Structure formats: C-alpha cells, structure tokens
C-alpha cells in the first residue's frame, strides 16, 4: 500500500518566557495506508506534540507535513478545521466526551459535521453499548466511556484514527477490549484505515505493524514489525 503520511524535518518550538524549547527537533518519517502504528517514547519525548500536528490541532514551527498527498502544514485554521472534520478521528486518555449529552447524542454529534456518517446506533452496537443509549457519561465506567469515544471517532469513518494513551486510564482487561476495537477499525474498510496510537506502554508495540520510537524530540527508530502478535497473545 502507498504512503499516507510523510514528515519532513518537522520542528515544533515552544517559547516559554525568554527560553525556547524544541518539542520536536527535526522529525522525518513515513507511515503507509492501513497500518496499525504505535508511537513509543518516555514522557517529554514529543509524542503528544506529534499527534497534535498530525491531527491538525497545532501547527509546526517549520518543516513539511504531507497527509494523503495534501501538505497540511500550509493550511490555515479554517482549512485545518475541515481537515479534522473530514479525515481525523480522535481518542483521548480521558475520553473527552461531552458530559451533558447522552451516549447516543455524543455519537450523533458527528451528524453536525460530516455528511455521511455511519449510523450512531449501529456503531454503539458494534462497541457493545446498545443498552446504554440514553445514559449520561458519568453513569458509565471508564472503559464504557472510552468505547463511546471510539464510537464517536469511527462514526465519521476517518482516514486516520489518532489515539493518545487510549488505555492509559483503564485496567488491563478493559484496555485489551479497547485495543481490539481499535484493531478492528484498522482492519475494516478493506484494511484501508490507518490507526496511530501514542503511548509509553511498550507492550502495545508488540501488536503494531509499525513502531516509531521518539526520544528528545527526534525519531530514534522507525521499524516495521514483520510478525505482529495477536492482541490476545500479548501477556498484559
């Protein structure tokens, strides 16, 4: 399959007072369509910054980011918003679902931004929440909330699913369930969907097609995993 993502010498500099700090310090890598990617690194390595750039939530200080043939590093705010709306699904460590909307409403929210979203009820069924349509988020367990978040992300059938420590706040059993769902999303749609997971949990890397290691704002390694393990096989 062809290349979906290309980072060319991407830098992201934060100015804190008079000092400046390079969160990303000249990052180059590529990711192919349909891959299940894990980005690994200790805290402060620049993982979240990388994800934010990928998701169009933040702009690079310099360098080029090409996604699906489009150079998004040249986009303005409004173009980035459209880019996010059409192509990106997000999953956060703390779920970020709206507390005043019910489970179903949180997923249906997508109807307001995407033209042909998947049926919210159908997706909630797929993630096993068909019994909780009318509940509010605070009535759900952490794993259930994360599944709402996943349902919301995949409802728009995104080209790219970005996950920031998706299992970070969950116990291991629930974490496995969540990973399975993410893998399933990656494999659906004839294996065209790309999923990127940012984590410091190296165990997850064992199931990935590709593992990118970050350290001090630079790519330490970018390896293809020839024989990814099945999720059940990993010893959590």
């Amino acid at each position, binding site marked *: 399959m062809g290349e979906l993502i290309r980072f060319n010498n991407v830098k992201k500099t934060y100015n804190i007072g008079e000092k400046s700090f390079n969160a990303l310090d000249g990052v180059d890598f590529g990711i192919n369509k349909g891959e299940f990617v894990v980005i690994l690194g200790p805290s402060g390595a620049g993982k*979240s910054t990388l994800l*934010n750039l990928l*998701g169009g*939530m*933040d702009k690079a200080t310099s360098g080029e980011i090409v996604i699906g043939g489009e150079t998004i590093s040249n986009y303005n*705010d*409004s173009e980035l*918003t*459209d880019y*996010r*709306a*059409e192509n*990106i699904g*997000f999953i*956060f*460590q*703390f779920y*970020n*679902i*709206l*507390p*005043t*909307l*019910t489970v179903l*409403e949180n997923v*249906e*929210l*997508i*109807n*307001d*931004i*995407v033209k042909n979203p998947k049926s919210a009820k159908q997706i909630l069924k797929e993630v096993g929440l068909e019994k909780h349509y*009318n509940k*509010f*988020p*605070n*009535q759900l367990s952490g794993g259930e909330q994360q599944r709402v978040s996943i349902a*919301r992300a995949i409802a*728009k059938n995104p080209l790219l699913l970005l996950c920031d420590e998706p299992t970070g706040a969950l116990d291991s059993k629930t974490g496995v369930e969540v990973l399975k769902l993410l893998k399933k999303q990656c494999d659906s749609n004839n294996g065209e969907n790309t999923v990127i997971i940012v984590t410091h949990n190296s165990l997850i890397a064992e199931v990935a097609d590709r593992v990118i290691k970050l350290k001090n704002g630079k790519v330490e390694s970018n390896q293809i995993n020839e024989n990814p393990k099945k999720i059940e096989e990993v010893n959590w």
Partner: protein
Amino acid sequence: MLKRKMFRDIRFNLSQFITIFLMVFMGVMVYAGIRSYMDGMTKTADIFYEDNNLQDLEAIGENFTDEDLKQIKDIEHIKNAERKLTVMGTMENEEERTLQVNFIESNEISKFYVKDGKAFDKSKKGVWLDEYYAKNNNLKVGDTIKIKYEKETLEEEIIGLINVPDHVYDIKDESEIFPNHIDYGFCYLSINEFPENIIKQEIMKKMNVTDETIFNTAMPDFRAQDYLIYNYVMIDVDNEENKNNVKNQIEEKIENAIAVTDIKDSISYSSYQGEVEEGETYVGVFTGLFLFIAMLSVITTMTRVVKKQRTQIGTLKALGFKKGKITNHYVGYGLWISLLASLLGLIIGPLFIGNLFMGMEMEYFQIPNGKAVISTSSFIVAIMVVLVVSIVTYITCRKELKENPAETLRAEMPKVKQNSLNITTKGIFKKMSFSSKWNARDILRNKMRTAMGIAGITGCCMLLVCAFGMLDTMNNFIETQFEKLFNFDYKLTLKSGYSDEVFEELTKKYGDSTSQSLGIEIKEGDEKQSNNIFVDDSKESVRFLNHDGEYIKLSDNGIYVTEKLAETKGYKIGDKISWHIYGEEKYYESEIVGFDRNPQNQNIKMTKKYLENLGIEYKPDSIYTNEDLSKIKEIDGVELIQDKNALEEGMLSMINTMQTMVVLLIIVAAILGGVIIYNLGILSFTEKQYQFATLKVLGFKNKKIKKIYIKQNNWITIISIVLGLPLGFFMVDFIFKMALSDTYDFSAKIKIASYAYAIVGTYIVSFVFSKILAKKVRKIDMVTSLKGNE
C-alpha cells in the same frame, strides 16, 4: 504574605476589581445621593416651617375687623392670629410682572426669613421683597421699586429680601406648573403703607359721593386705618388635632369668614409635599432597581474572580493553609473593595447628587438653607451592600474549599446530576438540535446563574421600557390636556365684578364660550371637603372625556365627577352629594349622573342649565376664544390672557428635563445589562472551554461553536424581554400612579414603538456583549485546553 498576594491579585485582575468598585460605588452613590436629597427636602422644609411658624389655618374673608381678630384670638386652642391684607399689584412700566402685595400689622406667624436687610417693623417704611424674585430681577436692598395697585403707585425702597413659609411655592395661577420667579413674586409692607386714597375712594363710592370736599366735610374725623379691609387671618393652633374644632368655631362665630382652610391644603404647602411624595416613589423604584442590578453585576464579577482563583485555592490548601485563613483572604477581596466603594459612595452621593437635586429643587421652591441630609437608611444600605458582597465571596470560596485539593487543582468540570437532566432525554427535548439540548442542560445545571442572568436582563429591559414609557406617558398627558380637552386657542380670565356692558362687549368680540368656577365645600358626615365645580357653557371649547377616551356631552340633569375623585371618595353613579358655595350657607343636593376623566384636575362639572335650575345665577369668569390674540397684551375687564400653545410649550419644556433622565436611564440599563451578560458568560466559559475544545478537535467550526455558546444568551435575552416588557409597563404605571398627587390622573400609556425600542435596545446590548464573549471561542487553544483536563 497573603496580603501581598491580595494586592497582586487585585493588580492582575484590575478590570474586574474596578468593575466591582464602580458598581458598588455607583449603586451606593445613587442610593445615598437621591435618598439624601429626599430627606433634605423633608428636613429643610420641616425646619423652615417650624422655625418660622407657618400658620395652621387661614381664614379668608372680605373684611376682618379688629373685633373679629379679638374674637378669633379668644377661641380656645388658638395660640395666635394675625391679619393680612393681600392684593395683586403689578410693577409700574412692567405690567407683565405681577406682585402679590401683603400688608401686615405684625409678623409672628409665617415669619420672614430675612436673607438680607432688616427684620419686619410696623413703623418702617419700605418693602420686604421676595428674595427669589429680587434675584431673578436683579434687585437689591436699597433699590426702589414702583408697585402699581389700582390707580395708585407705591414707590418703596427695598429694605429686606425675604423667604416666607407660606410662599414656598408661588405661582400666578394654576396654568403655571413651575414658578419662574421672574414675572411673579410677593412682597410685604407695613399696613401703614396702604394707600389712604384707595380707602377714601372706596368709601366715597359706597356713599355715592363724587366730590372729595363734600366727603371731607361729611367725615372730618376720617382715619383710613379704621376702614382697612383685611382679607386674610393667619391662625396658629396649639395642636394639630384641634384644627378641625377651631375651624368650625371660626366659621360659626366669625361672620366675615367666608372659608377657613387648612394650610396643608394650600397650593404652596401641598405642591411641595407632592414633590416630596413624588420623589419618594422615584427613589424607591429607581434606586432600588438600580441597586439590585448593580449588586447582581458585583456578585457575578466577584464569583468570577474567586472561580478564577480556583487552582490557587487548591494550591494554598495543599500547602497546608487553614480553611479559615484562605476564606479570610478571599473575603477580604470583596470586603475591602466594597467597603471603600461604599464609603466613597456615601460621601460623594449626598455631596454631589444630593445637593445637585436639592439645588435644582430650590430654584423653584423658596426655602432657605436647602441641603442634602444623609439618613440612616443610606448607612444601612451601604452596610448591606458590603455584607452581601462579603457573604457571596465567602460562599463561593467555601464551595471551592469543600473539594479536596487534588480536585480543586484541576479546572472545574461540569457535574452532571442524572435526575435533573433525565427530563431532557424525553418528549420535545428529543427533537431538539444538539446545540439546543446542550444549552438546555447547561441551564438546568446552572439554575442560579441563569436566574441571575434573567433578573439582570429583565431589569435592563424594564429600565428601557420605563425610559421610553415615561416620555410616552407624559406626551399622552399633554396631548389629552391640550389637544383633546382644550379646544380653544386663548382663555380669557375675567376680572371679578365686571359690569354687564363689559361682558357683553367681550362676548361680542370673542364669542360666547364661557365657564365659571365655583369654590365649594362638600359635606361628608361631619367633615367638609373643599373642591370646585366647573360650570360649563363653553359650547365645546372645553371638552370632556369618558373612561375610554371618547368625548361626552354633559347632560343637564345632574353633576359629573372625575373618575379619580370618584375612586378616592367612593362615589357611584346615582349617589347624591351635598355641597355649598364658599361664603354662602345654603346647601344643595346633586345627583351624580356620570364620570369623566381629567389628567390634571379632579373636580365636579355641571352645565349652566343645571346650575340655573338649582336657582344659582351663572356668572362666567372665563371666556374661550380662537381669535388671534398673540399681539394683544391687555384687554379691558380681562385679568389674564392665556395662550394655549404657550401653556403647552411650557409643559413640553418639562419633558426636556425628563429626556435627560431617559438618556441616563438608557445608558445605565445598557451598562448594567452588558456587565451582567459578560460576567455570566465568563463565569461559564472556564468550564465550557474544555467542551468547546473537544468540539473543535472533532472538527466543529469556530462559527458553529460560537453559535452554540451565544444561543443561551439569546434565550435568556428573549425570556428577559418577555418578562421585562410587562414589568416595565407596570413600573411606569406605578410611578405615575404613586408619584403624582391625588389631583392627577394618568396611567401609563406606552406606544408599541417604545416597546420595539426596548426590545431592540435589550437585544443590542445582549448581542454586542455576546459577540465580545464569542471572540473567546476563537482563542481556545485545543492542545492546552485538553491538557488542562488531564
């Protein structure tokens, strides 16, 4: 250390603290200022009346003799009595300047307040002149004025400039509302100065003598002072409750007394009292509402400041500061600032606003030493304001402290109570758009905040309705009075005692639309109420309106009373009232056959024919005409020529003052409404920020998020307008009903256009401040907002 933190916090949140300071300051200043003006009015007058011994009763007659005076003084409960000879004069060569000229024997009752010059002395020549009149006409002590009375001219030196307690409010006649002190004033002279010649001529007329030499031989011992015609007696009663008794006794014993009136019914006293009562209503309604809205904005701002300090509160707590210490620290914010602002308001309010209004009032009302008086209620209000601010700060702070430090260290997350939101998953809510649902639930979760918002914007809308409504109501009053009721261009008031020839000549020239006013007393059990009857033969030059504003024609079979009078007295159609003309003994009984409505005058009306049927001679005192009299200054036999348009313009000029107030109201309403909307918006923004960031990440456009954000304000604004319009109407109605004395009858009349202005105005305020708030949405940084939640 915390003290240092407080000062720095204040510096970093300067704009919020300035808002709090200004709002408290303005609220207290306006309240204390206007309160001090009202109390100043009452107090100043009380002192003046007391110190200068205002009479309690006044007897009106045609000729009070020495014997009468002695008899009056002998009546039980009467402390003192003085006679007064009052006539109307004009300034020589300046006929448009009228002076009420009083000749007195002594000055123990209604004593002069001598502003400049000498005290009263019967033996002194010269005139004590109305101080305000003197000021407005550039007259000083030592100047000489010439007063024309009948055919005599009194040339007198001004020996004193005075204020007198029964001349607090002096107008030439009822057509004037505000005294101008330029073409009308009063003066006092010793009775010795009364021109002897006038008395002589009067007696010669009575004796049918035309030659003075014959008179001199016929009355060689003629002494003018024996024939002086005193027409007033001022009476000082020992006790308020004995007034009625004394009044009846005088009426019984003194034949020369045509009527005895209570000084409280006099135009001077009651107009001033009316002004005070009118003011009291304004004070209550406006300063109350103003203070309320100002407090709302202070409370919302204070809450905002404390909430902003949430993480710091958490830090302080985590560091081990005791709850009490942290609370004290934050309560200090509200306490010191509101205390300082209140104190300043208490000082500045009376000093500037109070004395400004007092000064304006004292241009019209003649009372010496008028100044604002700070009352206890202002102190109480100031203390309450400080308390409320401190308590609100305390409660907000305590709320934050209740959570454990770990919680507080995080940005505030909305807490969702399942039960309260359950309702919103059913019924009509199901069909709502996402943004409506979101907002509906946000409102349900923040009922207090929403209630404050609605209260504030409703107040804003009310003030706007009130501002426009007051103008409308006044305009409507003027239109009713001058366009509907007065159907003439000029009113001629005839001199009393005119001859038939003169009258015939006048009617020939100016038409026969005439009327007569009769001063009467109505018997009500043992009491007697004075009033007047308007006898109509104006041939529709003066018109009458019924309750619904339609013209009515008076029938000849009874009397009409004005609605307001009927309401206060409980008259019904078919009731009979018993009345007599002042100075006559005979009582008449008349049936009420209808009600009419008059905005300015509550009295009784009848036709000429009905009057004549009662056996009373019709003797018109006014002629109404549409002839152009703009160039004519004087007509023989006519005392006063009144131009309807000039009267109307006089009234309209009063509206100009009101317009200034309206502009002020609008500005105040806009500022207050804006501050409240802004504060509430900011208050909810921190917790919404994270949700908006999420929406942004999902791909919602800024515009869409702004719309969601503003939607709630729009709802609040719409609800507030729906509430504010009728409440505004009631407020105007209340003001006009309560503020005006019994003689006035006008209810709120607000044009549709005014409601439209109020709606547009309220909406603009809400829209502008929402727009400013919405700008914050663009600034939300997704990365940090979402991080802050971790």
